[in-house]
């Protein structure tokens, strides 16, 4: 077999990153070298990985075996279209983020910086290995390496107890998920104890065991992806991490879970059952709505973004559910459409969420504030950050002609094409699902207006914002890269979809036919639906230009600056703007049932009144608290065994002896 070149490159880059990790460990004393040398090199690696991914999409995938791993189970690596696609996603997002990180971490102390760079590169390497692994052991090792390194990244600032708690919660849920993945692989290998994916592909599972495997996978990967109700760690952990890391975790790491789900469901399992899809769809929609509702009531900007990540994962998962439904129902074309949509959305989310997180990073860096109540008006102090973030915000809010709109458009198209499914109840479910998706999208717009408006617009809510400084050049470059990706992905959907074709062909042996051309995107037929963002954009620009010139002509263009009018109210000041809580208040009012609101009411005689309304989700109380209590109770019961009296211990062993003697006769 000829050695697959791209795969070797990928492995080479992994080693290269490991090397960088080791190097940064040696640079404990020289912080500036880490930022000025190691991280840029790491960024190049990311770019190279993206290139490898492209190669994996176009070239025939290859695989080879490394001499490490278990004796009977060396590491198998494999590069196919699916992993190729996710490599592109990883590389593309990671490049921008790492470039950004070069500037972001410049001011960090040398020792922690070295450790951070160590874990950072291990994290990247781990994620790449997850995508390349072709046997259960390699996959699990990479998976946990990813989790562990990201845990250490999250707890970079471990002096703060909340961050420690967040990290703990994160690693715990990640580990439980990992164990269930382990069980899933145990099922998948179906008897003949071989753990390479090749064997699993060939293993014949009964529907029952297949379902068990799927459920275990859904649980395991869902725990990593932040699927409701396993999402509790996400809004804690993502904000806790340094912003570039949050960007990677939200943008890329969550997608590895999607990758795993696709890999297991469509590649390793050789039977797909419709109700899996229904389940996934339901969970996805729940997650989407839940996430966006809570995003709307957050007042910590990174937490808000974390919740919005949950929402996007929900949308992706809904797409996944539809794919399974259609595929199990033999509607290949539709399955291709939805799968394209979900992959597209995953790609988009990697970029705009990365962009938004690093944007908040810059704000955090120059103001030191995460709470939106103490921000505002930054568009004047830090225009670069503001405008680039605006691109991200519009994109994630699903505004044409940016990329967020395309994927949602595709998904909605899928809903419209559904009639005539085998199961009648599905035909009933689909419209409701469509409605839910639409509502989530609309709420996302709400969230983003709140986010951008409160942080960047209006009056500065605190004094220290007066001397906030804009991001430095590496940051700007990083953000530019991500923003450019958002725009381009939005403008050339037809090309992206062609690039996605190999993935869908690999998984469901069907590709999405584009009835249009490179300019027009027409998923099924031009008659049904079509969308041409480029034309769209050009026309908008044209109209803008015309209007502008026209106005210029008819209008003399004198402008007078004055105080804001505000219905003639004189003592207008920054404290009178909506705070983050205020902006979220209508949503809180509407969706009160889901939330547990902690309020701090101001005292009427307070000169500088302060109001705080913190909305937490009830799932913690409803689901996790009981579990914890149960565990405590059980351990209390177990504690009774150990009550210190030796006679009782003797009684135990005596009883055991007698019992066994009776039992064995």
């Amino acid at each position, binding site marked *: 077999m000829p050695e697959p070149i791209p795969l070797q490159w990928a492995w080479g880059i992994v080693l290269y990153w490991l090397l960088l990790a080791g190097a940064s460990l040696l640079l404990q004393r020289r912080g500036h070298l880490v930022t000025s040398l190691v991280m840029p090199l790491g960024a190049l690696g990311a770019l190279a990985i993206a290139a490898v991914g492209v190669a994996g999409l176009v070239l025939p995938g290859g695989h080879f075996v490394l001499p490490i791993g278990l004796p009977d189970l060396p590491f198998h690596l494999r590069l196919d279209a699916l992993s190729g696609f996710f490599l592109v996603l990883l590389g593309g997002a990671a490049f921008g983020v790492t470039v950004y990180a070069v500037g972001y971490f410049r001011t960090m102390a040398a020792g922690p910086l070295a450790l951070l760079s160590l874990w950072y590169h291990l994290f990247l390497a781990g994620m790449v290995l997850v995508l390349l692994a072709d046997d259960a052991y390699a996959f699990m090792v990479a998976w946990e390496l990813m989790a562990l390194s990201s845990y250490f990244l999250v707890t970079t600032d471990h002096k703060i107890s909340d961050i420690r708690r967040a990290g703990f919660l994160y690693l715990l849920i990640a580990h439980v998920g990992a164990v269930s993945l382990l069980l899933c692989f145990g099922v998948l290998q179906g008897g003949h104890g071989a753990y390479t994916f090749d064997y699993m592909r060939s293993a014949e599972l009964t529907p029952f065991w297949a379902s068990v495997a799927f459920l275990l996978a859904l649980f395991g990967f869902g725990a990593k992806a932040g699927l409701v109700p396993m999402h509790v760690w996400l809004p804690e952990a993502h904000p806790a991490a340094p912003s570039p890391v949050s960007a990677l975790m939200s943008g890329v790491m969550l997608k590895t879970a999607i990758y795993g789900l696709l890999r297991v469901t469509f590649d390793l399992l050789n039977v797909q059952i419709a109700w899996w899809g229904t389940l996934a769809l339901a969970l996805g929609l729940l997650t989407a709505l839940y996430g966006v509702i809570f995003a709307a009531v957050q007042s910590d900007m990174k937490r808000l973004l974390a919740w919005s990540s949950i929402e996007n994962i929900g949308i992706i998962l809904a797409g996944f559910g539809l794919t399974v439904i259609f595929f199990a129902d033999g509607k290949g074309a539709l399955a291709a459409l939805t799968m394209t949509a979900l992959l597209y959305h995953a790609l988009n989310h990697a970029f705009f969420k990365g962009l938004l997180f690093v944007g908040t990073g810059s704000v955090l860096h120059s103001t030191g504030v995460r709470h939106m109540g103490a921000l505002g008006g930054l568009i004047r102090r830090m225009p670069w950050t503001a405008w680039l973030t605006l691109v991200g915000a519009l994109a994630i809010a699903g505004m044409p002609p940016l990329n967020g709109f395309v994927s949602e458009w595709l998904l909605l198209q899928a809903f419209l094409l559904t009639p005539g499914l085998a199961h009648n109840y599905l035909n009933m479910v689909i419209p409701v699902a469509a409605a839910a998706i639409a509502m989530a999208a609309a709420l996302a717009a709400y969230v983003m207006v709140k986010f951008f408006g409160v942080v960047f617009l209006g009056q500065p809510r605190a004094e220290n914002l007066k001397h906030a400084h804009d991001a430095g050049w590496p940051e700007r470059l990083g953000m530019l890269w991500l923003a450019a990706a958002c725009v381009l992905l939005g403008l050339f959907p037809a090309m992206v979809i062609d690039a996605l074709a190999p993935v869908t062909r690999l998984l469901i042996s069907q590709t999405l036919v584009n009835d249009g051309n490179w300019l027009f995107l027409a998923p099924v037929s031009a008659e049904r639906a079509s969308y041409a963002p480029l034309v769209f954009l050009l026309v908008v620009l044209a109209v803008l230009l015309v209007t502008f010139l026209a106005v210029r002509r008819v209008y003399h263009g004198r402008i007078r600056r004055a105080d804001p009018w505000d219905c003639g109210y004189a003592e207008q000041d920054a404290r009178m703007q909506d705070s983050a809580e205020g902006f979220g208040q209508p949503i809180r009012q509407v969706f009160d049932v889901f939330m547990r609101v902690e309020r701090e009411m101001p005292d009427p005689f307070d000169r500088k009144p302060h109001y705080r309304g913190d909305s937490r989700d009830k799932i913690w109380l409803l689901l996790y608290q009981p579990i914890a209590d149960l565990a405590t109770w059980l351990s209390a019961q177990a504690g009774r065994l150990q009550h210190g009296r030796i006679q009782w211990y003797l009684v135990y062993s*005596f009883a055991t*002896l007698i019992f066994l003697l009776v039992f064995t006769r």
Partner: protein
Amino acid sequence: MALSYTLQVVNLLAALLLLIAFAMLSQRRIAGLVTLFAWQGGALAASTAIVAWSTGQHHLYYSAVLTVVLKVVAMPWYFFRLIKRLDVDREVEPMINIPTTMLIGIVLVIFAFNLALPISQMAGTVTRSTLGIAMASVLLAFLMMITRSKAIPQVIGFLAMENGLFFAATSASYGMPLVVEMGVALDVLVGVFVLGIFFFQIRETFDSLDLKHMEKLKER
């Protein structure tokens, strides 16, 4: 026919062993316990010797001698000294009251006999029927360890269990290989000395040998 006489003697001794075991269960005074223990050792040694004589298993003589030296002479003497030195010889109420203990004991004996029945059938030794008794005395010693709340009685129970084991070895298969018997004896000896050191340590730390003081380590 001589063999049957010896056999009867052996069985008699076995019965004596069991009797002593019960006596130990009901004995309240520590000194009394030690005496009983010595008697048990004696019975054990005697039966071993007789079996050795009757079956010509000469290595059994050694173990008989060993038993006499260790369990009839050395240890009782040692224990008496301990009791004097630590002066702990007074009535001790066991955790469970005596009659109940007795009842449990009876049940155990029946259980042990049932357990030993199938095995002793296939035993090739003349003394097979005593295997049940051996097992019973082991279990009774165990029961005694459970019911006693003082250090020394517990240890005596432990040694009584050792006696039961020896008896089992003798009755089931004319004893273990000599090396093993030696080793076991050595262990028992060392164990007792270690215990001796222990008693003093415990005594000087808790100024009593009552196990009630030693229930601090627990889950709270």
